[in-house]
């Protein structure tokens, strides 16, 4: 996600996806993890981890089995993060999703859009590199538009003086 698209500092609590009218309304995924971080790139490079600003990769969601069920066609569904991610409003946001298998082999389809450049990477089976894709899911970053806590602490200090 480009910083120009996000346009604000935001504490991201949820990721919302919009189910497309195909595939299944349920599935499950083993060792499902979501990482978030920053990248300086507008177009991603094939080696997944090379895209991160060093030190910014953060685990925000992890399930040994992640189950989706009863997803209505055309409706948004939510992945509530275990650990909210504070996006500071500067730099592009990386969302990195991995899982090892899907026991029932069913796919849930979500709406996406064409960015015309390689803004996503996909690899199956998962490897250290992936293939560039132009399509990015239509998403909502669900969150609160607030300031970093240390900013408040500094303001309080100034008032105290």
């Amino acid at each position, binding site marked *: *996600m480009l910083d120009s*698209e*996000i*346009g*604000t500092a*935001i504490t991201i609590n949820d990721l*919302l*996806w*919009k189910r*497309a*009218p*195909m*595939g*299944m309304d349920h*599935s499950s*995924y083993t060792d499902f993890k979501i990482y978030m971080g920053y990248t300086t790139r507008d177009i991603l490079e094939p080696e997944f981890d090379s895209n991160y600003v060093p030190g910014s990769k953060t685990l925000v969601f992890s399930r040994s089995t992640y189950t*989706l069920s009863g997803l209505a066609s055309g409706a948004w569904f939510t992945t509530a993060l275990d650990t909210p991610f504070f996006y500071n409003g500067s730099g592009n946001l990386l969302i990195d*999703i991995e899982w090892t298998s*899907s026991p*029932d*082999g*069913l*796919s*849930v*389809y*979500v*709406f*996406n*859009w*064409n960015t015309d450049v390689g803004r*996503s990477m*996909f690899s*199956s089976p998962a490897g250290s590199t992936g293939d560039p*894709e132009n*399509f*990015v*899911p*239509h*998403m*909502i*970053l*669900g*969150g*609160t*538009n*607030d300031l970093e806590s240390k900013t408040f602490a500094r303001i309080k200090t100034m008032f105290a003086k």
Partner: protein
Amino acid sequence: MNRFLKALLLLSAAAFADVEIGFDQGASSTPFCGG
């Protein structure tokens, strides 16, 4: 009292900020591919 309530509502609106990115163009099973 009426003004006070309106102020609270404005603060509440500012505190919650969902950011929608993209639109419905195509569809894919990524990242929820079961295959």
